[in-house]
C-alpha cells in the first residue's frame, strides 16, 4: 500500500521539525487503518492543539482540529451522535494530560469507544520547550531552567485507574508495534489508550543533551523492555512496552441505546 492513499498531499509539506517522531506515529497509524481495511469515510480524527494535533490536517478522513485539551470532549459528541463512526484522537502529552486531563479521565470512565493516542515527547514543542506533566523531575525545560521538580503521571496507570479498557505503550523506535497496537485499539470496543513515546530532538533532546533523533530512538530501544521481561526484574528503571489492559466492559454508546429502549418502551 501507499500512505499517499490516506494523505492530503495538498497540505504538505508538514510543519514537524526534522527528526520529529510524530511522522513515525502518523505512518504507523495509516498502516493500521489500511490493514484493517477501514473506509476513509467512516473515520473521524479529532485533535486539540500542539505539534501532535496537526496530524489531523494531513490525513484524508473527516478531521476536526479543535481547541487545546478538549479533543476528547468534541470526539465524545461526534461519537455519541453517530456511533458507527470510528473516532481516533491523537494528542500530545500536555494536550491530553495537563489542560485535557479532566476530559481524559472522564472519557476513560465512560468507556466510550474512542481510540486515544498519546504522543508523549515529554515537552511542549510548539510553544518552545516548556515542561509537561509527563516530563518528570530532573528534566530541563524552558520553564524549568533549574531542572523540573514536578512529578510525572504514568499514562498507563492513570488510564487504567480511570477505567480505560485497552491500554498499551510503545515507542517511535518500535514502529511495527505502533501499527499493531493502534490496530488492536481501533478494533477494541471501548476507550482505548495507546501511549507512544516519541522524540522531540529540537526541544527535549537539545535541552537534555540527548543527542540527535537517531540517538533518541536508540535510547528508546535501550530504555524499554516488553512487559514482564527478565530484564525488567534486573533493572526496574526500564520502561515496559506492551498491552497492559485488554478487557470487556459496557461501552457508553451501547449503554445509551439501552436508555433509549427504556425511554421508548422498546417501540
Amino acid at each position: 500500500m501507499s500512505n499517499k492513499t490516506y494523505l492530503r498531499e495538498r497540505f504538505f509539506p508538514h510543519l514537524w521539525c526534522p527528526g520529529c517522531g510524530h511522522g513515525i506515529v502518523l505512518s504507523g497509524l495509516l498502516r493500521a487503518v489500511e490493514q484493517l481495511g477501514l473506509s476513509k469515510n467512516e473515520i473521524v480524527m479529532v485533535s486539540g492543539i500542539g505539534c501532535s494535533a496537526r496530524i489531523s490536517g494531513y490525513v484524508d478522513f473527516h478531521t476536526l482540529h479543535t481547541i487545546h485539551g478538549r479533543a476528547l470532549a468534541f470526539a465524545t459528541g461526534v461519537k455519541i451522535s453517530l456511533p458507527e463512526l470510528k473516532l481516533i484522537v491523537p494528542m500530545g502529552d500536555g494536550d491530553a494530560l495537563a489542560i485535557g486531563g479532566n476530559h481524559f479521565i472522564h472519557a476513560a470512565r465512560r468507556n466510550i469507544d474512542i481510540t486515544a493516542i498519546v504522543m508523549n515527547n515529554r515537552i511542549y514543542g510548539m510553544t518552545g520547550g516548556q515542561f509537561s506533566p509527563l516530563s518528570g523531575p530532573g528534566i530541563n525545560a524552558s520553564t524549568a531552567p533549574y531542572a523540573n521538580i514536578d512529578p510525572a503521571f504514568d499514562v498507563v496507570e492513570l488510564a487504567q485507574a480511570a477505567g480505560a479498557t485497552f491500554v498499551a505503550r510503545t515507542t517511535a523506535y518500535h514502529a511495527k508495534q505502533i501499527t499493531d497496537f493502534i490496530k488492536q485499539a481501533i478494533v477494541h470496543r471501548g476507550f482505548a489508550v495507546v501511549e507512544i513515546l516519541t522524540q522531540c530532538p529540537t526541544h527535549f533532546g537539545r535541552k537534555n543533551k540527548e543527542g540527535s533523533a537517531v540517538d533518541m530512538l536508540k535510547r528508546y530501544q535501550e530504555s524499554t523492555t516488553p512487559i514482564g521481561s527478565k530484564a525488567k526484574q534486573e533493572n526496574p528503571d526500564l520502561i515496559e512496552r506492551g498491552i497492559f489492559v485488554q478487557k470487556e466492559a459496557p461501552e457508553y454508546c451501547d449503554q445509551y441505546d439501552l436508555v433509549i429502549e427504556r425511554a421508548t418502551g422498546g417501540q
Partner: protein
Amino acid sequence: MNKNIKFVQGNEAVAEAAMYAGLSFFAGYPITPSSEIAEILAKRLPENRGKFIQMEDEIASLCAIIGASLTGHKVMTATSGPGFSLMQEALGYAVMTEIPCVIVNVMRGGPSTGIPTHGSQGDVNQARWGTHGDHAIVALTASTHQDIFEVTVTAFNLAETYRTPVILLFDEVVAHMRERLVIPEKGELPLVERLRTSVKEGVDYHPYLPREDGRLPMSDFGGVHRYNVTGLYHDMWGFPSSEPRVVHGLIRHLVDKLENRVNKLARYKEFFMEDAQIVLISYGSAARSALHVVTNRRLRGVRLGLLELQTLWPFPSEIIREKCAGVRAVIVVEHNMGQVMQSVKMAVEQPDSVFLANRIDGTFITPTDIQNILRLIQGKGV
C-alpha cells in the same frame, strides 16, 4: 380543552421549544438556575431517539454539542454565568468554524459565584465580547413563556441559516416563574433545516466557500465529503492559512454575515409607541415591570411607550434611533449597571436624554422603581 396548553416554568418552555425545533442532541452540566432544562431533556430526548449526555464540565458540554452538530444534529447546551464563562473559548471556536449550535445562558447574579438563586441580566456584554477576538454574535431574549418558546425556535432557525452559535440570554426570574404556555401545533412556526451540499461524491466540495448568497452548505461527518475543520484562520478547504488575503476575507465574512443583517435579525415588540413622549427600553424579566408601568401610566394620560428588545446582538441601533427620534427621554430598564443603556446611548441622537432604571441587589425591579425614575425625569420628585 386544548391539550397543548401547559402551566410551566420558563426553563420548561425552552426545553419544549427546543424539541419542537428538532433538537436531537444536548450536552450539559448542572448549574442553577438552568438545571431544569437538562433534567427535562434527559427525559424527553431519548423518548424521541435523541441523545442527552451530562458532561464533566461546561467546557466539555459546548465542545460535545459542536462535535454532534457536525454529524448533522440540531444541538443545544444550557448553563448559567460561571458555566457560560467557561464556555467562552469553545464559543469562539463555533464562531470561527461556523458550526450551528444554541447556547442557553439563564443569567444569575455575578461576578463569580455571585447570587445563584436570584435574577440578573449582567451577562449581556459578556455574550457580545466574552470570547476573544473580533467577531459577530447573535443573542436573543424574551420576557414571557410564549415568547421564550418562539425565540428559542428562532434561535435554532438562525443557527442553521447563518451557521453560527446563537445565545439565548434568559434570566432566573422568567426561567423559574410559572405561567401559561400554548405549545404551537406542528407546522405553526416555521423551522429551518440544515442546508446540505448538493455536490456529488468524488467531486471537490469546498466546505468554506460561501455561495453567492453568503450561505455555506454543509456536509455531515460520516458522509462522502471528507474535509478539515479548524479554529485557525482557514481557506475554502478548511485548511489553516496565514495568507493576509485569506485572513481578511474570513474575518469579514464572519462579521458581515450577521452585522450586514442587523435589521433583519432584530426582533422586538412595541407597546404604545405611536405617540410616546417618553420611551422605556427593556428586555427579559425587567420588561414585565416596564410594561406594567406603561399600561398603568397610559390610564392617567401619560404618553409613555415601551420598546421591548428580543434581539440584543447584533444590537438594533438603527431601529432604536428611529423609534426614539424626537422623544423627550429614554429610560432603559434592566437588571445590571447599564449594559444595554450604553448601547442605547450610542444609538440615539440625544444620548444625554437616556436614563437608567435598574436594580443590582438581586431583587426584582418593581414598577415603583421605574416610576420613581420617571417622576424624577418629569420633575415631580420621588
